[in-house]
């Protein structure tokens, strides 16, 4: 059995996917990947393919919906959109992230 992925990394990917889909609306995995890479200035060098298990998981959890459609070039692709539940989860994840960074900033200041 493979070791479980790092929870922080998984949480970060969740946040980035939800954020990007909220901003872009409807996107296929490849487009989403590009948007995440450019908006994070390539800070997160995750394997591009790791996006797909994440998209699958988030869809199963009801945070995203998916549908097949045609890409800009007319190729068959799977598109994703954020759901209302996804938007609520995004708000929670943002709050968690802000708490975490506030905590770290405090520790750094007092050290």
């Amino acid at each position: 059995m493979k070791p479980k992925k790092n929870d922080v990394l998984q949480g970060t990917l969740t946040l980035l996917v939800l954020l990007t889909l909220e901003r872009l609306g409807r996107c296929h995995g490849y487009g989403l990947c590009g948007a995440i890479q450019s908006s994070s200035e390539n800070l997160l060098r995750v394997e591009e393919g790791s996006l797909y298990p994440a998209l699958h998981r988030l869809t199963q959890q009801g945070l995203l919906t998916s549908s097949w459609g045609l890409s800009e070039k007319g190729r068959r692709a799977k598109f994703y959109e954020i759901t209302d539940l996804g938007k609520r989860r995004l708000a929670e994840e943002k709050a968690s992230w802000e708490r975490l960074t506030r905590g770290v900033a405090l520790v750094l200041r007092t050290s």
Partner: protein
Amino acid sequence: MGLLSRILGVFRAEDQYAELDDEMRFHIEERTEELIAEGLSESEARKEALRRFGHVSSMREEVRDADVSRNLEALVYDLRYGARQLRLN
């Protein structure tokens, strides 16, 4: 649905991962084309696209593991709930 069907259904059939394969193939094709446009040869572009993508089989495995876990959890929950109902009656 019969119990045997439920147990067998925990493991989705191989062909039900065709959609995931299509998705991953689309991604790798798009990346390959982008790299060709940037000047790489077709074989270099494909190699680089695959390198950036990561291990395709690991991704499939991860999705399958998640499906199996979820189906197993649902089955265990139903068996437990069903057993409790029987005891209460």
